[in-house]
């Protein structure tokens, strides 16, 4: 077996183990949350009898181990469980009734996940080329006024809280500028263009958040290489500085850059909670917040697992890509 597929398989197996460990952590953490669905949904009307009735209906009174195993085997067979908040009809009426399909966690999360992925994709399309070019140029003109300006700008944007950046953009691009709508309520009937413009504000905010990291890494990795003998050789041959960087330094700097990009992409899936809330973007982050508020445990658990899987997969991709770009890693001694 050639080394790359073997590494991929090994990593995948390790990824599954990681997810299993994560699933235990998620389940334990979610169960440690104070209050439960019955109390949350009943609010002021949570009499002990009503709480007990709903708990019984949902099987919340089973031992934790049994509930965990139920959940785990459910997922293994592709069943993420039933969302508590949407089976409310049955709970409140005492009848078993048609649930319209949205009670299933899987069906509920798929469209939201697509929306979040779309946002991540749009952001990546803006942020990755932007960060790479800014980083390369910063390496090229290092210590110049341009370099400092870019550093200050990106570092201050990453240091500001996300919601603050979001509100700044809303103020200038929406309230004062009138370019975009402040609420990104994308929906299935929108045309591609409407959807893109509606997604622009959250995407720009996320771009501001992730650019600094990637740009700084690009710059650092390239500058690090610029001191090596082969770059000196290239320079002595009289190649232009731009060509030295793009053709000679960049390929060797790719591994760390890809790693950072992958981490940031993972962040675009998992870290969008605040952004989605601020822009009312119907993605997985907003669903997650709602589910935590309602103590809709199956949805919370599924969201956590999706976040964990996104991290594991993107890290795996990063590792594999850096191995492929680096022959030394492809054939370990």
């Amino acid at each position, binding site marked *: 077996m050639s080394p790359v597929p073997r590494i991929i398989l090994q990593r995948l197996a390790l990824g599954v183990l990681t997810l299993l460990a994560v699933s235990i952590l998620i389940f334990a953490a979610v169960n440690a949350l104070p209050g439960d669905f019955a109390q949350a949904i009943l609010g002021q009307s949570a009499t002990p009898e009503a709480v007990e009735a709903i708990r019984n209906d949902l099987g919340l009174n089973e031992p934790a181990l049994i509930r965990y195993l139920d959940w785990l085997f459910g997922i293994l067979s592709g069943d993420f469980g039933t969302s508590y*908040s949407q089976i*409310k009809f049955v709970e409140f009426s005492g009848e078993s009734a048609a649930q319209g399909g949205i009670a299933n966690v899987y069906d509920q999360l798929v469209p939201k996940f697509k929306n979040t992925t779309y946002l991540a994709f749009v952001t990546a399309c803006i942020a990755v080329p932007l960060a790479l070019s800014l980083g390369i140029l910063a390496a090229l003109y290092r210590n110049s006024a341009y370099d400092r300006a870019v550093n200050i700008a990106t570092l201050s944007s990453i240091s500001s809280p996300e919601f603050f950046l979001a*509100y700044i953009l809303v103020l200038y691009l929406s309230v004062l500028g009138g370019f975009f709508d402040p609420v990104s309520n994308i929906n299935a009937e929108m045309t591609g263009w409407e959807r893109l413009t509606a997604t622009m504000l959250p995407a720009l905010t996320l771009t501001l958040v992730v650019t600094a990291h990637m740009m700084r890494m690009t710059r650092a990795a390239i500058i690090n290489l610029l001191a090596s003998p082969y770059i000196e050789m290239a320079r002595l041959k009289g190649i232009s500085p731009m060509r030295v960087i793009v053709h000679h330094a960049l390929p060797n700097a790719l591994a760390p850059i890809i790693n950072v990009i992958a981490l940031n992409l993972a962040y675009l899936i998992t870290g969008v909670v605040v952004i989605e809330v601020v822009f009312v973007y119907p993605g997985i982050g907003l669903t997650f917040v709602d589910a935590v508020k309602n103590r809709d445990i199956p949805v919370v658990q599924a969201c956590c697992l999706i976040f964990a899987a996104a991290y594991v997969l993107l890290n795996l991709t990063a590792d594999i890509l850096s191995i492929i770009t680096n022959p030394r890693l492809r054939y370990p001694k």
Partner: protein
Amino acid sequence: MTFKMNRRGVLQAGAAAGLIAAAAKTSGADSNGPKRGGTLRLGIAGANTSDSWDGRTHTDTFMIMMAYGGVFDCLTEIAADGKLQGELAESWEASADARIWTFNLRRGVTFHNGKPFGADDVIASLNLHTAEGAKSAAKPIVAPITDMKKMNDYQVQFTLAAGNADFPYLLSDARLLIYPAGQEEEAIARGIGTGLYTVERFDPGVRFVGKRVDSHYKDGRAGWFDSIEAIAINDPAARMNALMTGQVDTVNRVDFKIEALLKANPNVRIIEVTGNQHYTMPMLTNVAPFDTLEVRQALKYAVNRQEMVDKILLGHGAVGNDHPIGPANQYYAADLPQNDYDPDKARSLLRKAGMDGLKVDLSAANAAFIGAIDAAQLYQASARAAGIEINVVQEPDDGYWSNVWMKKPWCTCYWSGRATEDWMFSTAYETGVPWNDTRWENARFQSLLLEARPELDTNRRREIYTEMQAIMSSEGGTVVPMYANYVDAISTRLMHGESIGNIYQMDGSRACERWWFA
């Protein structure tokens, strides 16, 4: 129009409903009156992923506005000016003891799926609330109905366990939606009602799109928009931004902190009404020291109500008078002596009870109402002048209603109020009811409550309810420092009628029906 009717004075309101319809029709034809057209875009707080078209579960604004105020109808309706009128019922009459009620239904009404509306639908829909295991908030309304008899296709007779003069009023509750009989499940899954708008799209907790039906019995007096698009915006800043930039035409629950900015915007208008929503601080009157009347009274004189209205509600409210009846109730006793801030009086009351000081815990969390902790601290400061030391205990929001409310001797709480006096009193202040959050028992109050319930004479009812408010105000176990206004904001392109409903937010949650574009 010189038509004036006390909403319970005339029990045969059929004529009244007809008159209102006729009057509205003429004003609709007026060139300055309402006109059809446009899409109303709303940004509404109060949506959840758990939303559905099941009226039994409707407690938050989004679904009440879209179901009760758009897709579905009830039997009766509270008009914007607070009068009761028929919705799917045309007229009704009661037996002398207010125990047997006969409702005549509107003819020629169809559900969105084409099924004609009739008596069976009424009976089936009300039965949903008493189904085995059903946890409907409207169950207390339907449960006392011992018998529902279909007299003919357009007449239903209700027999109540005991007389209740408020019965037609109660049937206007936002949860008592009328579904097509035999198709309840489908109607709940897809949203099939008799309302002005049909469901085009519904994504729970995210968005609703509704389309005006072609013809409707409310034509000419309601339902001016061609379509409705409501998006759920729970985040206050995002909601206000959406209105300011014109992405939506109206929003509910104005964020008081940026009210000045909204007012500065020439395209936005704020509409504000005082309804029945009130904040309370219930004491368990069977626990010392709250079992002493003077202690309760001293605490009522130790709170600076106006300061709370000014600082907690930023002026968007009115001072309360320690009873739960609000300006949207019919028999609200506005001229009752007001319990005012009077530290000396509080001190002398305590001395009378043989105390020269008082130390009590007040449990507070913002789960009770936004600003509850601040309100408790204001209370603490104002009570100090009366020699009362209030220890503010900050409780977690999680599980507040299970672990603190009705458990801790004194805590913070809110009530959205009820449409009728009887309903409010019998929900939380009647002897022995499960939600009696003060455990207060008063023989006179109790006998008045039972006397008023079947009483059909308006004047007598006013006397009784005034006395009950007075008893609660001076002896009751709850401090009601303030009524919180409903504050919504609308684009200046939008018009509304002369009066704005104050039963719920957003013109009684009927903005989609009542408003129109200029």
